[in-house]
């Protein structure tokens, strides 16, 4: 296995003139400093979050749960409770009810749909379990809050339309503004100004 790697680094025993000169003139350290110096002239890759910029995740991102409606605006959730059953941490509560008013796609909708984000580990098994594609893990990831109660999110909030459209490809850094509220701090993205970092 010598031909692989160790040969290049085995020069410590026989110190030739060349090696001695290298050592005297600090070539090894200069080589490293040269690499770092070169980076002075390259583009910055860091992201100024949360003041000016924000990362918009890719489509498959597993953030805060979203409940969806179909094209006619009917609730897709039929209250089948499969998400509750598939959840390894038992953080989802579903209470189904019968509904004849045509709110949902069938005559059964979720009366209550609650997720406890303190227990959730965002594994996405509920998403896989959902037979109607009602439940999707969305792209919201700023979930810190000042109270524990806020971490239990219910259907009424999750079914609202997403701030980032579903079709948006993601994987970009966009311009953003920091908004401090009483209950939460949010970074509002502006999708029109985008950049990629690599």
């Amino acid at each position, binding site marked *: 296995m010598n031909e*692989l790697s160790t040969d290049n680094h085995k020069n410590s025993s026989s110190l030739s003139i060349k090696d001695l000169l290298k050592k005297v003139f600090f070539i090894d350290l200069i*080589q*490293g400093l040269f690499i770092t110096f070169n980076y002075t002239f390259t583009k910055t890759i860091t992201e100024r979050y949360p003041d000016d910029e924000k990362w918009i995740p890719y489509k498959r991102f*597993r953030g805060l749960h979203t409940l969806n409606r179909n094209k006619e605006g009917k609730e897709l959730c039929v209250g089948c409770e499969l998400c509750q*059953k*598939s959840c390894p941490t038992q953080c989802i509560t579903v209470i189904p009810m019968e509904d004849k008013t045509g709110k949902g796609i069938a005559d059964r909708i979720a009366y209550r749909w609650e997720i406890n984000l303190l227990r959730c580990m965002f594994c*996405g098994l509920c998403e896989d379990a959902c037979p109607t594609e009602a439940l999707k893990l969305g792209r919201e990831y700023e979930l810190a809050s000042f109270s524990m109660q806020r971490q239990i999110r219910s259907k009424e909030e999750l079914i609202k339309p997403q701030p980032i459209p579903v079709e948006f490809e993601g994987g970009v850094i966009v311009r953003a503004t920091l908004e401090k509220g009483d209950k939460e701090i949010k970074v509002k993205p502006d999708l029109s100004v985008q950049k990629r970092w690599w």
Partner: protein
Amino acid sequence: MENGNRDLITREVTLNMGPQHPSTHGVMHLILHMQGEKIVKAEPDIGFLHRGMEKIAENLLYSQFVPYTDRLDYLSSMTNNLGYVMAVEKLLNIEVPERGKYIRVITSELSRISSHLLAVGAWGLDLGAITIVLYAFREREMILDLFEMLCGARLTYNYMKIGGVRGDLPPGFIEKCKEFVNIFPKRVDEYEGLLTGNRIWLRRNKGIGVVTAEDAINLGLTGPSLRGSGVNWDIRKDEPYLVYDRFDFKVATGENGDCFDRYIVRVEEMRQAARIIEQALQQIPDGPVNADVPEFVLPPKEDVMTKMESLIHHFKLISHGFKPPKGEVYSSIEAPKGELGFYIISDGSERPFRVKIRAPSFVNLQGIDHMSKGAYFADVVAVISSLDPVFGEVDK
């Protein structure tokens, strides 16, 4: 001391290193028995991150345990997922389609690169070379971007599932992955430029923490820690799983078994992993990614929407799980840190009777006493970094 006849013999001092010490890679508690500045004995005290993973597995359906394996070695979740699902697949006797196998190889090699990047970066950080970790993290960030695109998470991927993977490669993934593989070897040259020849790096690592090939085998070391001692043992090569036998790659080994050799092995493994990914991206065939075994594997979402049988299987599998045959299996893979094995005993019910995890970091950690005996206190930091233990995996 055995050799220090001229050393001043003082009273033995016991020093606690950790569990909050920044260079102990997590919650490691090391009890060091010291004679002056030299180590007489190093005892790792583990268990601060114990969550009872093996017991949790006994109370969950087979498919529900996959996200928990993410939390074992959280720096390379993908290989943990792979180790577990391969063990269950062996129990169920499922064959994954070709495309699924190639995707698994690509993702686990990416995972290997990201794990080694952090190992080398944090190692530099521990020994005072702070630049390297910033550079290593840039490439690691690229890999995390790729993983986010692929499975939606940056750390706890939960991408593998029993019988395949959670989703096919998204459009644009192969191009981006190729771009990464093209950039990466040049970046490894940069790391080597920063570290490999650096005299401080050499003085801190050469001849430190020496473990001979025979001792390494006796201690049960695996992965880069074993190969650094010159033992040519890599499960990918010696007991090929998935499609590793179709790729041309070399197993990097060291000679002296010191910290520096372990570093060289890691760097070389990163290069070889990039080569494997490149070949896999060229060879990857079209086709399904999940095995078509309705009694064990969830049917595709489109089928659930349109076909009655698929919908029935879907409901059945989610709510009751599946019942594998009675029996025991052991399956192991080459994770970035060493041999990761899962031993599963099935009693024929839908939950495993017992899951034993052979975590590489846990076994490698017992080499620490052998490696740091007689060394200076500052060398222990280099030894810990060279073993690269991750405490999610050690404590389980």
